[in-house]
């Protein structure tokens, strides 16, 4: 936190330019610096005094947490923290218990694959990966689609376990791109093609499917 404050102070100091354009006096943002595009400049208005809450992720427990929820939080945190550096040795440094989940942690940072690769991998089960339905199965069933369509090879992909959980969460959280509905609410009652387009997009924006 203090390091961040110092970095912000240095950046603001180094970038200070009294000749930089400002919003004219008399307007609501009068006096505020603007950039070349006329947008308000972020660094100008950051308050440096006092505590800036960061909402830091929790410490990684050294011992295996007793509940699956606590383990899930820890695994997500580690996978996001290490990213592509998630080799077993690096994982072990954070806690010996985590090495049991090395496959889940390291698969999280797989590079994006083609749809064909993800579909082909369905027939090759592997630790750290799960089968994902491109069109969500529960909702598709509720909307009257057959199990045959839902479980067809075209609708199945093998993706990293933690990405699978992340995408499932994404479907349930309100989202500005769906008018602040959840994707699940938005898709309710829509046809297969719309559901599939959103499903493929979810895989792309989560870095699982190539653009």
């Amino acid at each position, binding site marked *: 936190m203090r390091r961040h404050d110092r970095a*912000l102070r240095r950046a603001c100091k180094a970038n200070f330019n009294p000749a930089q354009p400002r919003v004219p006096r008399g307007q609501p943002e009068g006096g505020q610096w603007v950039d070349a595009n006329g947008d*308000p400049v972020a660094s100008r208005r950051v308050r440096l005094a006092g505590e800036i*809450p960061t909402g830091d992720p929790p410490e990684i427990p050294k011992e295996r947490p007793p509940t699956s929820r606590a383990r899930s939080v820890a695994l997500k945190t580690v996978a*996001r923290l290490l990213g592509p550096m998630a080799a077993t040795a690096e994982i072990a440094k954070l806690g010996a218990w985590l090495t049991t989940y090395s496959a889940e942690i390291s698969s999280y940072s797989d590079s994006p694959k083609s749809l064909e690769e993800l579909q082909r991998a369905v027939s090759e089960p592997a630790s750290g990966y799960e089968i994902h339905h491109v069109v969500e199965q529960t909702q598709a069933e509720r909307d009257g689609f057959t199990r045959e369509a839902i479980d067809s090879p075209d609708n199945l992909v093998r993706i990293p376990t933690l990405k699978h959980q992340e995408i499932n*969460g994404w479907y349930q959280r309100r989202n500005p791109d769906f008018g602040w509905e959840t994707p699940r609410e938005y898709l309710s009652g829509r046809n297969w093609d719309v559901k599939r387009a959103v499903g493929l997009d979810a895989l792309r924006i989560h870095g699982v499917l190539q653009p």
Partner: protein
Amino acid sequence: MTDAALKNLSVAQLVERFTAITLGQFQAELHDEHKKYNDLIEEMLAVEQELKNRPGDQRSALVPLFLHPNPQVRLMAAELTLAVAPTTSRQVLQELWDRKEFPQAAYAMGTLRALERGDRRPS
């Protein structure tokens, strides 16, 4: 907090409230508390509306949060300033994607794609 109570807050207090709410969203996502996350979206949109209603549209007061260390705060600050700081807010979204700060990176890329397609028209 009710809409009436928000009216009594200064712009700086509204920004503080916005920060606290989005930090709450960060924790709710981490703990898979989807209902809590969605409730906090509602609260955040109320703050956004209050800032928008202030003379001169004070949503630009969220721009300093583009430098906040927490990715959820930066994400939502950028999402809600697309109309008032169109270029820098897009840069923040692009940075979240480039740094692979998931899950916020997914929302950032979703928005950038929606803007490119013309499906999102910030107002």
